[in-house]
C-alpha cells in the first residue's frame, strides 16, 4: 500500500522565519508528488514534482524532489501570517489516478 509521510506534523514560527516542510513516500509506482495548501477550505494547488528533479518556485515558496531519498521538501522563506495553513503532500501513481495524501503539516506563523 502506498504511503506518504509528512514531518513535522505541526510547526510554529515567527514572521520572517524560513521553514522547511518534509514529505517522504513509499510507493509502488511513482509518477508525481503534489503539494497543496489548505486553509479553512479547499486544498489549493502549489506544485507538482516529477522524477525530473527540477525545482519548482513561486515567489517565496519552492519545492524539489529527491529521487534517491524518496522525499520532497517545501521551503517557505520570509514567512508571513498568511502562510499559516495545513500543507499537504500527495502522491499520484498514474495520470488521472487518485491522490494519496500525507497527514499534513500544520504551520502557524505568529506576528
Amino acid at each position: 500500500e502506498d504511503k506518504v509521510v509528512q514531518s513535522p506534523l505541526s510547526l510554529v514560527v515567527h514572521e520572517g522565519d524560513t521553514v522547511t516542510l518534509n514529505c517522504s513516500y513509499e510507493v509502488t509506482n511513482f509518477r508525481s508528488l503534489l503539494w497543496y495548501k489548505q486553509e479553512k477550505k479547499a486544498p489549493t494547488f502549489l506544485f507538482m514534482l516529477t522524477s525530473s528533479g527540477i525545482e519548482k518556485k513561486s515567489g517565496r515558496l519552492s519545492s524539489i524532489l529527491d529521487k534517491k531519498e524518496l522525499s520532497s521538501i517545501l521551503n517557505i522563506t520570509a514567512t508571513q501570517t498568511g502562510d499559516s495553513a495545513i500543507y499537504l503532500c500527495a502522491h499520484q501513481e498514474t495520470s488521472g489516478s487518485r491522490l494519496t495524501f500525507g497527514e499534513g503539516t500544520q504551520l502557524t506563523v505568529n506576528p
Partner: protein
Amino acid sequence: AAGVIQSPRHLIKEKRETATLKCYPIPRHDTVYWYQQGPGQDPQFLISFYEKMQSDKGSIPDRFSAQQFSDYHSELNMSSLELGDSALYFCASSRSGNIQYFGAGTRLSVL
C-alpha cells in the same frame, strides 16, 4: 478563472436520512474525483469518473453511490447516513489526468 463548484456548502441531516452532494468541474475538465476528509484527517479518496465512466474506486461505503452526467457534473448520493459520515466532502477535477483542482467542499453534519 472558473473553479470547481460544489453544492451545498453545508448540509445537516439526521441519522438514516439521505443526502446528495453536487459537483460542477472546471470547464473542459474530463475527470472528477470525490474525497472525504474527517476532522483532523487528510483527505481520503472515495471514487472518480473519467468521461462519465467510473475510473477508480476507493474506500467508499456501499451506502454511497456516485455518477457523472453528460454535462460532466457529478453527484454523490449518500443513504442511511451514520454519525461517522460527518465530514468535509471535496470534489476535484482535472483535465487529461493532470493536476487536480479542488472545490470548496460540502460540510456534512449528521445528527
